[in-house]
């Protein structure tokens, strides 16, 4: 019988104790793998959300609410405009690859709900906007033919709420103007789902905002220095620069602060599990004091005893660690739901990204921690003096 088999059999002698210790290790591994997966998943999701915006920098008139949600909160008011000539000015910067002008307009509709609500329309350029949003796919139809057409493309949720399909009409409240729906987008999981897109020139004409924009999306060349571009854009009069990179950094800073605390908790869980391992193995060594003495009297060297006890720790940590990682994979969706419930902002897509690298790292960390905590009990066992151990057992 080899040393692995003996170690395994020793663990099975006290099944409940072994199971409880392995359970503690499993929970530590679960917390560790889930947190590492969350760290990676959140960052990936945030990157994806920012990339899905299609542009890295958004230019708006100073104080302008640049999102439909903010516009709604402000009751459709508070929009500020910048001249269309800003497109040319921005294009002069060598870092700029593409730009897409946008004009948002909110109309109060008294026939939505008891007190009325705002219907928001986003005017976009038929040529430059679609390539900036390559992830948008159509459930029906396609983009409008020209920037002057009285046509609309509806996000999935907007179309669902208004029960609109391609060929149906929209009526702009207060204008008595009919618009034909030419496209319904598939659900994208972004704010575009609730947006009604109209051609930009049509929006300018319909709402008497010729030559004006509320936003300008800027896509920067791959190798370009975004900070340098942003600094130059800050110098433009009466515009605000919304840097998606900055938004990302701010969110990640917040998440990182929370992560330090959570990682601290994971560290404590790991230490508790290690203390449990030391306790279990040490107790096991004490209970087998005489037995170890007999093994040594039969010719086992201290290193053999050390290896046997250490192997018990390795098996315990290996099994507990593997079970914990399996648990983290099985409960990833549940953990994700909990995180989404508690976090004020969570990006779309999978929040807990468990891959081979993360699970491997968590497993190795748990096993390494376990092996470290097994050193002392194994050392104590290796130092047992055979005759003394047998005499003590005999006296008892």
């Amino acid at each position, binding site marked *: 019988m080899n040393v692995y088999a003996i170690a395994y059999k020793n663990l099975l002698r006290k099944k409940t104790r072994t199971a409880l210790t392995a359970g503690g290790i499993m929970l530590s591994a679960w917390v560790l793998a889930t947190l590492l997966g969350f760290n990676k998943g959140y960052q990936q999701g945030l990157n994806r959300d920012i990339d899905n915006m299609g542009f890295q920098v958004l230019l708006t008139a100073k104080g302008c609410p640049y999102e439909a949600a903010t516009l709604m909160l402000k009751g459709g008011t508070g929009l500020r405009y910048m001249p269309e000539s800003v497109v040319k000015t921005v294009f002069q910067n060598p870092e700029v690859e593409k730009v897409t002008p946008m004009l948002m307009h909110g109309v109060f*509709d008294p026939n939505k709900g008891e007190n009325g609500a705002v219907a928001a329309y986003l005017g976009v350029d038929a040529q430059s906007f679609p390539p900036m949003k390559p992830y948008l796919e159509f459930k029906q139809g396609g983009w409008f033919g020209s920037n002057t057409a009285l046509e609309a493309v509806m996000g999935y949720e907007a179309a669902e709420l208004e029960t609109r399909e391609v060929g149906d009409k929209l009526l702009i409240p207060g204008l008595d103007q009919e618009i034909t729906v030419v496209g319904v987008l598939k659900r994208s999981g972004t704010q575009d789902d609730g947006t009604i897109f109209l051609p930009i020139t049509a929006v300018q004409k319909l709402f008497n905002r010729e030559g004006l924009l509320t936003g300008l999306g800027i896509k920067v060349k791959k190798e370009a220095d975004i900070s340098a571009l942003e600094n130059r854009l800050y110098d433009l009069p009466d515009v605000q620069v919304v840097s998606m990179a900055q938004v990302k950094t701010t969110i990640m800073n917040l998440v990182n602060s929370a992560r330090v605390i959570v990682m601290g908790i994971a560290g404590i869980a790991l230490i508790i599990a290690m203390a449990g391992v030391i306790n279990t193995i040490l107790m096991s060594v004490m209970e087998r004091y005489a037995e170890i003495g007999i093994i040594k009297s039969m010719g086992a060297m201290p290193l053999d005893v050390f290896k046997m006890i250490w192997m018990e720790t390795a098996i315990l940590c290996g099994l507990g660690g593997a079970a914990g990682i399996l648990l983290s994979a099985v409960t990833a969706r549940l953990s994700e739901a909990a995180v989404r419930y508690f976090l004020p902002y969570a990006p779309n897509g999978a929040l807990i990204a468990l891959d081979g690298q993360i699970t491997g790292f968590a497993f190795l960390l748990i096993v390494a921690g376990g092996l470290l905590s097994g050193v002392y009990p194994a050392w104590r066992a290796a130092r047992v003096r055979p005759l003394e151990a047998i005499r003590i057992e005999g006296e008892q």
Partner: protein
Amino acid sequence: MKKIFLALTALFLSAPAFAAVGCDLNDPDRDVARLFPGSTGYRTRYVSIKGSGGQPLLERVETRLGDKFKGLYETMDVPYTLYDIYKGKEVIGYIHGVNQKGEYGGIQVFLALDRAGLIKSFYIQKLTSRAARDLRAREFGSQFAGLALKDFEAYDPVAAKALPGSAPEKIKGPAKAGKDFAAVLRAVKKNLILLDEFVFSKKEK
């Protein structure tokens, strides 16, 4: 145990599912008190054709309606919000809303019914129409008070025709309402049929 295991498996392994859009009151506390004077409380439940009878129920509803469920959004899995209205501990009626495709957008039509199935209040929560103001006016809504499912049974929503002398024929639509008036009548008939299937027929059984 097996059911719990299946539920957990479904939760962990299923792809994210997006439910069809339902029809809820925007402010139930305020709206229930207004639509059902004298009520002291309400309980919200969610029902669907899919969950209450599936394809056979859908076919029965369509037959009774005299029209097919159509389009991208009028489907079997639409969740309907049903408000049981209480006075003290006693249920005194129901409020139920449906989405209906209108000429220029979705129309949300709510009916408040007493326990006998008679309409107490009619409310269009959301509507985009050239005659929106008139269709949402108290005068228009009051024409539905006291009517019941039997009054709409012969109404043909496809042709937008009611039997001469019948209650729907007597309901006067606003001049500019056009197709939206017919859409509202279809929504009322559909609402009454669904309430009958979800509530009144079940009580009889």
